[in-house]
């Protein structure tokens, strides 16, 4: 294996695993956290980062010259749309009169 390929393969592995890790954090958060607002935190953030790492790994595998550019474009989309969607959902909850959870409340 050429040294450059070794570095690239290593980076792919690291990025994929990081992506899996942050998506795992996101899933744990979505399951564990007490209300829709705090769940929206991990859903929008940890998940965006997880997706970002995984897509970076994909871009490295495919190669930027060819279709890799598309995964960069995809990454851009996710970074723009995910927080917007999370905001829309949180705002819907807020306008529905959902009171944010504070310490001592029952878990929902």
């Amino acid at each position: 294996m050429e040294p450059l390929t070794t570095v690239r393969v290593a980076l792919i592995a690291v990025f994929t695993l990081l992506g899996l890790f942050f998506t795992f954090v996101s899933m744990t958060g979505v399951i564990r956290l007490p209300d829709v607002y705090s769940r929206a935190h991990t859903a929008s953030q940890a998940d965006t980062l997880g997706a970002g790492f995984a897509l970076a790994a994909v871009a490295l595998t495919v190669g930027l010259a060819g279709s890799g550019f598309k995964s960069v474009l995809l990454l851009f989309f996710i970074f723009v749309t995910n927080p917007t969607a999370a905001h829309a959902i949180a705002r819907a909850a807020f306008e529905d009169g959902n009171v944010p959870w504070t310490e001592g409340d029952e878990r929902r």
Partner: protein
Amino acid sequence: MGVTPVADGIVVPVERTATLRATVGHAAAEAAEAGADALHFVYLAAWRDDDPHVERLRQDATDLLEQVAVWAEYDLEDANAPDLRIETAILGTDAYLFGPGQYAERLHEYADANELGTVLLDPEYTPVGNTALLQPMEFELSSTGLTVREAPVDRPSRRERIVSELTGLRFGAVFALSLLFYFVLGDPTYPFDFVTGVASAAIVAITLSQVTLDHDPTLETPKRIVRGAVYVPVLLWEILKSNVVVARVILSPSLPIEPTTTRMRVLVGSGLPLTTLANSITLTPGTLTVRASDEDLIVHTLIPWAREGLFEGSLERWTRLIFYGREAARLPTPKERGDCDVLQGPDATADLPFAETDGGERVEDAAESKSEVTDE
């Protein structure tokens, strides 16, 4: 059906709508003014008594009628007519009601039986679950000899005008952007892709250029893009840093979170700068923009560390740098300006603004939902 009833009472069919409170107020005022001797509120049920699981629906209807009666009593006292009789009833529980005709028929029967002459309608009332059927119902009612009126209450429109003026520059910008997007995915040297690309971009530009941009692109635009490009790595680093912190919090068994809602007055323009800032806040873990209106951001924070970071205002400064240049970025932090409030928890400095979320008209709604939430 009998003789035309004497016009000395008002009947109002009710349902949970945004204009119900105002309708009740109007009905009370009208009844007091006309010297009517009874004010009736009826609930036309879409279910039958022998349906399964109907208890909850009946309870809901009863609650609503009680609430309406309380409002009406209060309003009548205000109008100096505290002796006016208020009656409530649930109608139509013996059969399913289909179509506005049957709604009108039930109302007419009830009005006859109680000698009521006027029907006052909530403009948002939904017979058979559909506002569009209100007019057919009014028509049916008008042929029964009852006086039918819609309460003159408006629902303030929440939709703003989003269509802006069409200029050549905006059209060109949208066209160029969509064409670029198409060519990135396709192959511009291949004639088929080229032609379909131009056609699609033209369609997009014709249909959407009036809603996509509300300012003409200027010489500032490329500068903003360059400064934005500088911002991206900074933002990525912030995201990574705080993601690690939040991941530690979420994965720790005791789940040490302290969620609070905060309000921050930010000094960026509306439109794209505000969107950028709100999205950046949402992207950095621990903070989530819940509402963004004018210059007020309502931000939900997961841990105190994130709240402190938010009030330091570095994201706000970056947004100002991107959109207005370096001089604009020098300003005191929101904390120093005193532009931030904590809305929940022991450090609360202001109330949760549910009342003002909708121009004030949904105060009751918000209160209702609040109690619903705590009931669950």
